[in-house]
C-alpha cells in the first residue's frame, strides 16, 4: 500500500496547503464574526482575485508573489466599496436579505468572469509550480512552502491589527456590541466595510499564493468556497484560531483523501465533513456554544 514516507509527505503538503486555505477562511470568518453574515460571494471574490493575479502576470509581467501588496490594496478597496455601497444598503439590515444579496453578487461576479474569459481553464504556466525542496526523505513543494509562510505572516499581521490598532479595537467592539460601539462614536457602516475589505484583501493574498500551483477558471471559486465554509464551520464561525486550525486540518484531509480516494471523491470527503459538522456541531470546534 502506501509507505509511511508517502503518507507523511501527503500530510506535510496538506499542512502547507492548509495554511493558504486558512487564509481564505480567515476572511470569511472575520466577516461573519463582525458583520454576522455568511458571505456567499466569498468564492466568486476569490476567483476574481485569481484572475487579477493571472492578469498581472500575463499583461504586466508581474510575478504573483510581487502582486501581493498591490492586489491586497486594490481588493481591500473593492471589498470596502462592495460592502459600503452594495451589500449594506440593499440588505436593509436583515439577515435573510444579506444571504440573497451575497448570493446575487456571487452570480454576477462569476458570470461576468465567464462572459469575459470563457470557461477555459488557464494556468500560470510557470516552471516554479514543480519546484521542490528536500527536507529529509520528503519532497516538499516550494510554492506551497512559500504559501504557508506568507499565510502565517498575514495571519500574524491580522492578529496584530486587531489587537494593537485603534481600527482593530473598533472592529472588535462592533463585533461584540454594535449598539454600544455606535454610541461610543464608532460608525458601524465604516467598520463593516473595513472588515469586508480586509476579508477581500486576505483573498487577494491567498490568490497570489495559490496561482503558482493552481489553475484558474470562472468556476474555481466554487471549489474553494465550500472548502472555506467547511473550515469556518469546523473552526467555529468568527474564530480566527479556528480558521487557522481548521484550515490545516482540511488541508491534511484533502491531501490524504486525494491520495487514498482520488481527486473527485477526495472532494467528497470535505463535503461530508462539512455536512457532518453542520448537523452535529454547527458552532465548530472553537466557536461559542450556541
Amino acid at each position, binding site marked *: 500500500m502506501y509507505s509511511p514516507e508517502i503518507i507523511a509527505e501527503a500530510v506535510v503538503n496538506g499542512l502547507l496547503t492548509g495554511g493558504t486555505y486558512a487564509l481564505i477562511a480567515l476572511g470569511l470568518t472575520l466577516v461573519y464574526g463582525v458583520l454576522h453574515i455568511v458571505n456567499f460571494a466569498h468564492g466568486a471574490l476569490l476567483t476574481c482575485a485569481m484572475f487579477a493575479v493571472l492578469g498581472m502576470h500575463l499583461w504586466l509581467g508581474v510575478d504573483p508573489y510581487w502582486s501581493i501588496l498591490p492586489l491586497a490594496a486594490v481588493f481591500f478597496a473593492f471589498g470596502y466599496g462592495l460592502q459600503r455601497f452594495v451589500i449594506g444598503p440593499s440588505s436593509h439590515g436583515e439577515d435573510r436579505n444579506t444571504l440573497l444579496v451575497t448570493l446575487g453578487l456571487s*452570480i454576477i461576479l462569476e458570470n461576468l468572469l*465567464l462572459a469575459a474569459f470563457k470557461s477555459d481553464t488557464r494556468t500560470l504556466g510557470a516552471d516554479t509550480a514543480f519546484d521542490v525542496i528536500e527536507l529529509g526523505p520528503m519532497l516538499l513543494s516550494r510554492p506551497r512552502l512559500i504559501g504557508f509562510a506568507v499565510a502565517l505572516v498575514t495571519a500574524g499581521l491580522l492578529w496584530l491589527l486587531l489587537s494593537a490598532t485603534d481600527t482593530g479595537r473598533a472592529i472588535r467592539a462592533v463585533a461584540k456590541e454594535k449598539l454600544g460601539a455606535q454610541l461610543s462614536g464608532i460608525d458601524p457602516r465604516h467598520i463593516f466595510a473595513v472588515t469586508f475589505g480586509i476579508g477581500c484583501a486576505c483573498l487577494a493574498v491567498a490568490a497570489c499564493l495559490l496561482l503558482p500551483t493552481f489553475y484558474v477558471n470562472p468556476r474555481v471559486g466554487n471549489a474553494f468556497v465550500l472548502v472555506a465554509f467547511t473550515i469556518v464551520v469546523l473552526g467555529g464561525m468568527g474564530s480566527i484560531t479556528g480558521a487557522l486550525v481548521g484550515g490545516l486540518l482540511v488541508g491534511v484531509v484533502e491531501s490524504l483523501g486525494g491520495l487514498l480516494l482520488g481527486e473527485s471523491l477526495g472532494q467528497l470527503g470535505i463535503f461530508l465533513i462539512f455536512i457532518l459538522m453542520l448537523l452535529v456541531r454547527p458552532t465548530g470546534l472553537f466557536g461559542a456554544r450556541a
Partner: protein
Amino acid sequence: MSARDIAAPVLLVAVLAVLPFFASGTMLNFLVSALIVALGAQGWNLLAGFGGQLSFGHAAFFGTGAYVTALLQIRFGINAWAGMAAGIALGAVVGWVIGFLSFRARLRGSYFALVTLAFAEVLRILANAADFTGGAAGLLIRLQPGFGNLQFPDRGVFLWLVLGCILFVLLLTASIERSRFGAQLVAVRENEDAARALGVDVLATKLKAISLSAAITAAAGCLYMQNFLYLDANIAYGTWISVEVLIASIIGGLGTVLGPVVGALALHGLGEATKLVSGQITGIDLAIFGAVLILSVAFAPNGVMGLRRLFKGRAG
C-alpha cells in the same frame, strides 16, 4: 376555496394554454423551459415563502426526479409515466431525509442554506462519478414520440402537460394557504417558539413542507428530462436550477401563489431579451439574473405580486 382564489390561477393558465395555437416554435420552446423552472420554483416557494426556510440546494430534488425517471426508463425499461411518478416519490423522500437531518439539528437561515447547498453538491459529485448514472457522459433517453412515452413531438401538447402540472400545484398551494397546515407552516416561519406553545409540531410541519416542496421540484426535473431527453450531473444537480428557482420566486413574490410562475416567466423573458441584445455571450444572462436578485431585494422585496398589492392599496 372561494371562486376568487381559483380565478387568478385558472386565468393565468388559460392565457398561456391558448398560446400554442399561434406561437412560433422558438416561443414554445422558451415557454416550456420557463414553465419547467416555474414548476420547480413553485416547489421552492412552498418551503421558502410559506415555510421561511431558504434552500440553496433545490437542485438535489430536481436532479433526483430527473435521474430516477431517466434511469427507470433506460436501465429497467419502465414506462415514462410510472417513471415520473417514481421520480416524484423519490424526490419527496430525498427531501424528507435532508429535512430530517437539517431540521432535527435545528439548522436555520444561513446554516440551512449552506447545508442544502452541500447536499446538492454531494449528489452532483456522486452522480458525476458513478457509472450507474452515466458518469460524466450523462444519460440519453431514446427518442420515441408517443403519449405512452411521455414524449410529444408537438411542443404545444407538452406545454399543456406542463401547464396542467402548474395549475394543479397552483390550486394545491392556494388550498394550503387556506388550510390548517398552511396556517401552522406560516406560524412556524414567523416564530417557532410561539407556534410550539400553541400546539404546533414544528418538526413535523417543516418535514411535510420540505417533502412536498421536493416532490414538486422533482416533478419539474422529470418534465425537464422528458423534454430534453439528455441529462448529466451538472444539469441535474448543478447550481443553475437552485439559483433559478430561487430568483424566480423572489422576484415574482415570495410566499404568494402566483409569484413563482410570474417570476419564472419574467426571469426567462429577461434572459431572452438579454441574449438578443448581447448576443450569445455565455453568462451575461445569468449575471443579469444576479443583478435582478440584488435589485429586487433592495427595492422590491415583495416581488411583482407584492407590487401589485401596493397598487391595490391593501395593507402589508
